């Protein structure tokens, strides 16, 4: 019986946690700020108690989880309204390389070793400190790097090359299923898609992936014949 209770509770808590993370927003599943990290760690810990210990009521896990979700929403709302509050909760970005010079004082404040600095630069495809004009440690712990102008890769604008604007490329058919949302994103409709498929003599059900962009460029990958 205890196994059944654990089974049901785990499903219930799974639903609650998924709903909680959805409620807290997309930020919770990407880069975490201080308060978000705290909430995520605590929720995972709190959920495991009533899951494993059937002697604990489910409410003893649900109440703290809901309180944390509520606090997180309120704190993120306050951070949106007040930059002072945001600075208190998240801190401020720190410049560790300023105008090409490594700021050792800031590195000490961050308890960041030279190895950490070089490692984070490498992750940004920068392999020499000399190439960096500015390196900023953001409030979520990630590093932003601005290279020196002479070390930057030239872009089309700098070279005076005009590139055609093809717009966003979207997956309009995925595993035989047509996505009207993706069609709308690339300014196309069902009529256009039917015409393309007729022209290529292929049915939607036979397609594994079909991508399209606003210009009308398409790419079709058919499903494998053998299952």
């Amino acid at each position, binding site marked *: 019986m205890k196994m059944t209770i654990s089974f049901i509770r785990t499903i219930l808590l799974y639903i609650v946690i998924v709903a909680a993370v959805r409620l*807290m927003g997309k930020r919770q599943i990407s880069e975490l700020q201080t308060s978000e990290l705290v909430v995520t760690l605590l929720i995972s810990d709190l959920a495991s108690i009533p899951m494993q210990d059937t002697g*604990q*009521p489910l409410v003893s896990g649900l*109440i703290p989880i*809901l*309180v944390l979700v*509520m606090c997180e929403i*309120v704190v993120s*709302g306050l951070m949106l309204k007040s930059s002072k509050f945001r600075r208190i909760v998240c801190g401020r970005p720190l410049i560790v390389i300023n105008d090409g010079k490594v700021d050792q004082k800031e590195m000490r404040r961050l308890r960041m070793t030279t190895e950490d600095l070089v490692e984070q630069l490498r992750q940004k495809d920068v392999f020499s400190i000399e190439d960096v004009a500015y390196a900023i440690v953001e409030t979520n712990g990630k590093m932003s790097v601005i290279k020196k102008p002479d070390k930057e890769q030239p872009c089309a604008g700098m070279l005076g090359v005009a590139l055609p604007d093809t717009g966003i490329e979207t997956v309009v058919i995925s595993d035989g299923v047509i996505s009207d949302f993706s069609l709308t994103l690339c300014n196309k409709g069902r009529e256009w898609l039917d015409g393309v498929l007729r022209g290529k003599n292929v049915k939607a059900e036979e397609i594994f992936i079909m991508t399209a962009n606003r210009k009308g460029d398409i790419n079709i990958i058919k499903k494998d014949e053998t299952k």
Partner: protein
Amino acid sequence: MKRLWASVIILIVLGVVCIFGAISTSRISNDLTNTIESAKKAAEDGDNSKAFTLSKKAVSDWHQSHEVLCTYMPHAKLEAIDQTLAAMPSLIYYGTTDQFTAECDRSVTQIEYLNESETPILQNIF
């Protein structure tokens, strides 16, 4: 904005659940303590029949409230009171009054502890 409203709803739901928990624990423990103390007094006065009826009532009341309490209280705490109350009717039925009154005291202490542990006072918070 929708999320802020969601957090307000969560706050209201949590508030209702917490107040309901505190009130029902207090009500159940008070009722049960009164019944047990009446049973104890009846036993001390030599009215074993009344003490037996009251102890049976305490067991029955406890079983009814158990369904509510176990939704928000650790089951181990409730089991301890379960065991103490279960023995009481038999003790008075067979005339072991001393042991019956001792068990009454024990159950009252356990119920009071249950109530105190659920009360949002500073000692419990820190």
